[in-house]
């Protein structure tokens, strides 16, 4: 069996508990069952993930499909196609400097909010949510898009801004320090979007349909597994990927994501959610031309996986 193990180079946008189903799939052996060995690189940003995929350094990229829309719209021939979806919501939270159970979005008016960098999904999503809540992100709030994603928590702790939008486990770390408190979940507010998906170049998919299929299968089994297990069990399963995080913290974070229904239960990326994402991009002013779903998404592998695995 061991002889025909295929190594797949996976480039993830960031290393986060948010992607628990993926790590669970690895630790539970779903990939090795399929004869795949996953080699993870931390791409540190959707742009770099896709760059790695396009240049052929990574086989499969894991990031928001907005990046592949950019690439497609720049006229790249061998663009990246998304074939499986892992998370269906924004994984970030808004933190304030004090606990605020009665938080409403009006409270952000005239405040400084640290968002992600311009053109990135976290930033666009934040703008969208604000608009949904009747707030003009350009006029009413002061969104600080100047800070590198990885440095946002530090900047907030260091005194910049009134609110910050952060991923886990950073949000929890700030809470534990008493430096910030989660007041709202952007995931809950934004509705379902294809927040993080797996993609590969058109040519790679054409040449390696079986690898893509096996990969999708394993992801699907991971999704099923986290659905059926408790936060404690999930935390146990993925702790090896977060050696520096305390197990209790990990459990808390997993619970937070599980409770707000962050994870897709299947790898299926629907046209509705894809168009919804393009709406968000359009509204943020980063999209001058909508990209066709049929070109950018391939649902065939997800369908096969769902059919074959019970």
């Amino acid at each position: 069996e061991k002889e025909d193990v295929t190594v797949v180079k996976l480039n993830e946008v960031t290393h986060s508990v948010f992607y628990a189903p993926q790590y669970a799939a690895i630790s539970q052996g779903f990939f090795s069952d399929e004869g795949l060995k996953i080699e993870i690189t931390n791409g540190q940003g959707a742009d770099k993930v896709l760059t790695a995929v396009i240049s052929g350094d990574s086989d499969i990229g894991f990031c928001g499909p907005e990046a592949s829309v950019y690439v497609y719209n720049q006229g790249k021939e061998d663009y990246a196609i998304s074939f499986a979806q892992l998370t269906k919501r924004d994984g970030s939270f808004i933190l304030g400097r004090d606990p605020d159970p009665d938080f409403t979005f009006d409270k952000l008016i005239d405040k400084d909010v640290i968002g992600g960098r311009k053109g990135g999904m976290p930033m666009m999503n934040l703008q969208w949510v604000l608009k949904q809540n009747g707030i003009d992100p350009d006029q009413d709030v002061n969104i600080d898009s100047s800070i590198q994603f990885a440095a946002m928590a530090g900047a907030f702790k260091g005194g910049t801004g009134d609110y910050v939008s952060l991923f886990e486990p950073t949000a929890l770390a700030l809470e534990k320090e008493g430096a910030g408190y989660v007041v709202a979940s952007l995931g809950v507010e934004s509705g379902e979007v294809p927040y993080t998906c797996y993609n590969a170049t058109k040519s790679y998919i054409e040449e390696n349909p079986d690898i893509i299929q096996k990969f999708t299968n394993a992801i699907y089994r991971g999704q099923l597994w986290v659905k059926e297990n408790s936060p404690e069990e999930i935390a146990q399963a993925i702790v090896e990927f977060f050696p520096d995080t305390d197990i209790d913290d990990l459990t808390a974070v997993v619970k937070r994501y599980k409770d707000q229904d962050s994870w897709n239960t299947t790898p299926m990326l629907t046209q509705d959610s894809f168009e919804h994402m393009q709406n968000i991009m359009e509204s943020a002013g980063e999209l001058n031309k909508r990209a066709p779903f049929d070109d950018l998404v391939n649902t065939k592998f997800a369908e096969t996986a769902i059919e074959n695995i019970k």
Partner: protein
Amino acid sequence: MYMSEKNFSKEHEQYIKKLKTNRFNVIATRTILLVFFIIFWEVAAELQWIDSFITSQPTRVLKTLVNLFTEGTLFKHLFTTVLETIIGFTTSTILGTVIAIILWWSPFISKVADPYLVVLNSLPKVALGPIILVWVGAGPVAIIVMAVLISLVVTISGVYSGFTDVDEAKITLVKTFGATKLQILTKVVLPASYPTITNALKINVGLSWVGVIMGEFLVSKAGLGYLIVYGSQVFQLDLVMTSILILSLAAGVMYQIIAYIEKKLIPYK
């Protein structure tokens, strides 16, 4: 061209002619290389020998440039980065010189500081990025701190080694006149190390650019580094490439300005 009333020998005319031809050849080759490179880039992109999505292409760069210019943002970004660089450069020059003076003044301090300076010198200051943000806050100050951190140690050791290289005999000379330590510093050591200092400045200005770009990657609302980050975020490699070209031109110009100031400052050379 130098012209004189004198009649020069035939041999001399030939020599001058050869010099001129030589100079012409150099300039021609430079130009041809540049033009050829641009044309090749354009053609290769057009004919899809290279992937113009990745490498961009001259006409696209030009278009982006025109866009930036007409939108009026070009100068905003350029100005921001240049200003940060100048502030960072000036700060680290002054600070570095002052520290170098202290080290020169007290051999004891200089000996004590030595191993620390070696470690600080080898430490890739880039790594401090996240820490700087936390410490001085996310803003232009962080960018300038980054620029200063990156160029400071090099400035200190450049200037200090200029100080220690000063001809001992010159110091002995003013000592025979009974000079105080302060006089030795101001009358001999500082002016004598002008050339070394300006040389250190040439390195310093390059590092300040690096620091500012690094800083802008970390935190920025505007600037060429910001443009690069934004461009790569939304996969507009044309924008990235254009920014880099502007950047290298700006850096080259600033280097030449320093070189020019150096020439003016050291007329006796």
